C-alpha cells in the first residue's frame, strides 16, 4: 500500500473513572489507503464510533497517534482540527443531522462553503450532487418535508460536496428500513468508485460489511481484520 491516508498507531481511549472506567480502544493500529472503502464492524458499544470520532478529529486519543490527510490529529489545536474537518473530512450521521431551517440545497451548500468554496460554485456543486443522489427536484424542500431516506441522501450529498479526501459515516443506514438502506448503500458504493474518496463506514449491520473493500472487526477494544465479501472487494 502506498502512503496511507489515515494512520492510527497504538491508539488507546478510556472513558469514565473508578469502577465506571471503561477501556473502549486498546492499542489499536490501522492504516487506510487512499480511495479505500473500509467497514468497521462490531457489536454495539465496542468502540466503533469512538474510532470514527478520533479519525474525524471530533475526539482525541489518550495514547497513541492519529494521522489523517497529512494532519497530526493527536496534538492539533482546536482551530487546526476545525480546519481539518472543514477541508478534508465529510461526515454522514445516523440521524442525518440536517439543519432543519435550511433547504436541502442550502444544507449541501453549508457543507461546501465552510471549505472556502465560493457561493456560485457551492450552489453549482449542490445542485449537481443532489441530482446525482436523485433529489434534483427536491432541492428547495426543508428536511421536515423529506423522508428518512431522502434526508440521508441529502446528508451524503452534503458530505461529498466539499470533495473531501476522507468520508466518515456512522451507522448511515441505522435509521432506515431495509429497502431504503440497500439504496443508500448502493449509492455510497457508486460514489466511492466515482470520487476516489476514502470511505470509513462504521456499522453493526452485517449487510454493510459486504459493501466494503476491507472489513475490520472491532471487539472489546481490539481490532481484527477479516476478508471482505463485497462485490467491490473482488473488483479492486
Amino acid at each position: 500500500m502506498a502512503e496511507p491516508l489515515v494512520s492510527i498507531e497504538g491508539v488507546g481511549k478510556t472513558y469514565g473513572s473508578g469502577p465506571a472506567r471503561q477501556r473502549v480502544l486498546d492499542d489499536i493500529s490501522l492504516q487506510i489507503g487512499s480511495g479505500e472503502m473500509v467497514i468497521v464492524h462490531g457489536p454495539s458499544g465496542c468502540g466503533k464510533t469512538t474510532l470514527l470520532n478520533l479519525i474525524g478529529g471530533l475526539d482525541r486519543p489518550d495514547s497513541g497517534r492519529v494521522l489523517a490527510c497529512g494532519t497530526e490529529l493527536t496534538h492539533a489545536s482546536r482551530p487546526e482540527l476545525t480546519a481539518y474537518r472543514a477541508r478534508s473530512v465529510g461526515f454522514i450521521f445516523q440521524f442525518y443531522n440536517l439543519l432543519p431551517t435550511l433547504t436541502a440545497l442550502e444544507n449541501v451548500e453549508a457543507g461546501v462553503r465552510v471549505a472556502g468554496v465560493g457561493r456560485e460554485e457551492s450552489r453549482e456543486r449542490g445542485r449537481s450532487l443532489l441530482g446525482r443522489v436523485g433529489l434534483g427536484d427536491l432541492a428547495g424542500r426543508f428536511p421536515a418535508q423529506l423522508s428518512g431516506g431522502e434526508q440521508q441522501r441529502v446528508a451524503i450529498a452534503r458530505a461529498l460536496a466539499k470533495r473531501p479526501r476522507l468520508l466518515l459515516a456512522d451507522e448511515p443506514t441505522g435509521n432506515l428500513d431495509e429497502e431504503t438502506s440497500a439504496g443508500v448503500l448502493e449509492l455510497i458504493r457508486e460514489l466511492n468508485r466515482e470520487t476516489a474518496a476514502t470511505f470509513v463506514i462504521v456499522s453493526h449491520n452485517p449487510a454493510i460489511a459486504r459493501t466494503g473493500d476491507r472489513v475490520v472487526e472491532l471487539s472489546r477494544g481490539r481490532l481484527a481484520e477479516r476478508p471482505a465479501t463485497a462485490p467491490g472487494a473482488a473488483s479492486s
Partner: protein
Amino acid sequence: MLWRKAYRDLRAMGLRAVLIVVVIGAGPGTAAGIALAMHDVEATRDDFYSRYALADLDLRLRAPLPAAQLRRRAKEAGARRTEVRLILDGAALHGGSRTAAEVVGMPVGTRLNRLAVTAGDGLDRGAPRGAAVDTDYADRAGIGLGDRVRLRLAGRTISVRVRGLARSPEYLLATANPDYLVPQRGSLAVVFLPRASLRRLTGLRGANDLAVDLPGGGNGKAAERLAAGLPTARVTPRSRQYGRRLTEADIHSFTIFAPVMGVVFGIVGLLLIALSLRRLVSSQRRELGALLAIGYPARTVVGSVMLLAAALAILGAALAIGATIGVGRLVANEYASAVGFPATRYPLAFGPLALAAGLALVATLLAALLPAYRLARLDPIEALRGESVGSFELPGWLQRLTAVGPPALTYGLRGLLRRPLLSAATVLSIAGAVGLGAALNILVSSTDSSVDASFAGQGWTHSADLARPLPDRRVTALAKRSGANRAEPTVKGPAELRTSAAAGGVGAQLTGLPRRPALLRLDLTAGGDPGPRRIVLSEQTADRLGVGPGDPIALRTSAGRTTVRVGGVARTLATEQAYLPRAEAARLLGLAGRATSVLVAGDAADARRLRADPAVARVTSKASALAAERELLDELTGLISVLQAISLGVGALFLVSTLALSYLDRRGEFATLAALGYGRRQIGAAVAGEALTQTLLAAALSIPLGILIASPLSRRISEAWFEIGLHPQAPSFLLVILPALALALLAAAHATRRALRLNIAATVRARLIG
C-alpha cells in the same frame, strides 16, 4: 415515584431549570417591586409629614403683629394647634458667598413644622446664637457643624453658630424662587433660630407668621376667617405648600410610571413563562407518552408534569419575592433620597409580595397545565413518537430574504422563524423594556426643552424681591442705581379664583405686569395679553377652572373682590399664575402704586449691588433658575437611570434566557455545524445574527412604543407640574438602544462560547429536535 421523577427531572434540567426559574421570578418580581417601591415612597412621605407635623396653614404677614393678637385670632378661627413665628428675609454670608436667606424664629419646642435633625443638635434656649441650618444649603455652601454664618437681617448683621443640620417639612425643597416649580436645592439659606433669640438679635417685636392646624384643613372656612382683615403677604395651605406640592407632583409622576412599568414587565414576564413551560412540556412528550403506554392514567401523567412545574413555580415565586424586595428597596431608596426625605420607610407590605408570588405560581401552573392536559388526552402511540418535528416551511420571498450571507447567518436568521411565538415574545419583551427606557429619556429631554424654551423668551436676568412693598418710582430708581439696563417693577400677591359653576376656588399668585412688558414675556397659547378687567391665566389654572378666553371669573384677594374675564391663557413654569395690568393688580392686592419685586436686565455686578441694598430681601437670577433646572433633571436622571437599568436588566435577562433556552434546544445542530468544520467566527455569526436581529427588531418597535408610553406620561406630568410637550429626539432612543445592542452581543458571545465548548462527538449523535 412521581416525586422522585420530578426531583430527578429538575436536577437533569440543570441550567434550563435555572433559566426557567429566573424567567418565572423576574417579570412578576419587577412588576411587584415597582408597586412595593410606590408603597414605600408613600409611607416615607406620610411618615415624614406626620412625624414632623407640617401645619395645615401658614399665614405670612407683611409686617409683625403682637403674638398674643395672632394667637387670639387663631383661637377664634378654631385652630387646634398654633405656633407664632418671626420669619425674616435677608442674606446669609459664609466663606465669601452670599445667599438669599429665610431666617425662621420658632419656638424651641414647636409642635408644628418640627425639625428633623440630620446632624448635630436641635435648637436650645440655652444657646441663643445656636442655629439649625437646612441640610441642602449646608451642603451647597460647604457648612459644617460648629461653623459660623453671618446673617444680614433688617439692616443688621448678626453672627450665629451652626449647632445642627436639619430638614423641615416646610422647607423640604427650599427654593429662592418659589414662582417656579423647579426646586433650587440650597439656593435659599434656611436658618432656624429660637424665636426669642431672633427677636433679641434683630430688635424686632411680635410675629409675622402664623402656623396652624385647623378643622377642615387649610382650605376651609376657618382659614378664610383667620386671614380676613390681616395684612397677609402669603397664605399657604398645606396643599399649596411648595415642598409638599413638589413631592406630591413627584409622587404623582411616579404613580404614573409605576403601573406602566409594572404592566410592561408583568405582560412580557407572563408571556415568557407561558412559552417556557409549553416548551418544557413538549420536550417531555416522549417519556410522558411512555407512562401513558404502560398504563398510567392521564391524571398521573398530568400530575407528573404539574409536580415538576410546581417545583419550578415555588423556586420562581421565591425568586419573585426576593426580586420584589430588591427592586422595591432600590427604587424607593433612590427616590426618597432624590426628594430629600431624611429616612426611607419600608413598612411590611404583604400585598406586593403576595402579588409577586401569586403571579409567579399561578402563571407557571396554568402555563404547564394547559399543554400537559392536551398531552394527556393524546393517544399513547402518538405521544410516544416524541415531539412532533415541526414542519418548517417558509414562503419563497421569506426564504430568499433570509438567504443572505453565508449559510451560518441564514441558519441564525431562520432560527427566529422556527419558533415565531418565542421570537415574538422576546422581541416584544425587549421592545417593551427599551421603549420604557426611551420613554423616560423622552420625558427628561422634553422637560429640558420646555424649560429652555420658557426661559429663552424672557428678557430679565435677575429678579429682586423687596423686603417690603415700595412705591413704583422708588423701585425703578433702586434698580437703576444698581446699574441695571432695564427694570420692571411688579406686584405679586395671593388671590383666589372662582367660577360660578365650580364648587371650590383655585388659589393662584396674582402678578401685575406693565402695559407692554419687555422683561417678563408671556408665552400665550390662547387669547391675548392682560388688559383692563382681562386676566391671563396659566394653562393649569385655566384647566382646573375649566375656563377659556372670554369666560368670566370671580377674583378675591385679602383686599377685596371683583369679577374679570379671561383675556388669555399662557404657558408658564409656575403652575398657578394669574396676570393683570400692574395698576389693577396692585389695587386688588391693596398695594396701589407700590411694587413687591422688580425684574431687571443687567449683569452679575448689578445683581451684587441689588443684593447689597437694604430694601431688597433676595435676588435670584435666571441663570441660577436654569442651573437648578439642570440639577433637578440630573436628580431625575439619577432615578430614571435606576429605572432604566432595571428595564435593560430585565430586557437583557429575557434575551439571555431565551437565547440560552434556544441554544439548549439546538445543541445538536451547533455540534453538527462544528463537525462540518464551522469555527468560532461562523458559529458566533449565526448566534449574533439571531440575537442582533431580535434586538434590532425590538429597537425599531421601541420607537413607536416609546412615544406611545411617553405620550400619556407627558400629559399627566403636564397636569401635575408644567406643560412639557413631547419632544422625542434620537439620543433618547440611542441611549437605550445602544446598551441593548451591546447586551445582545454579550449574550450572543456567551451562547457562542458554550456552543464551542460542546462535546461534539457526544452531542452530534443525539437526535435533533428539528
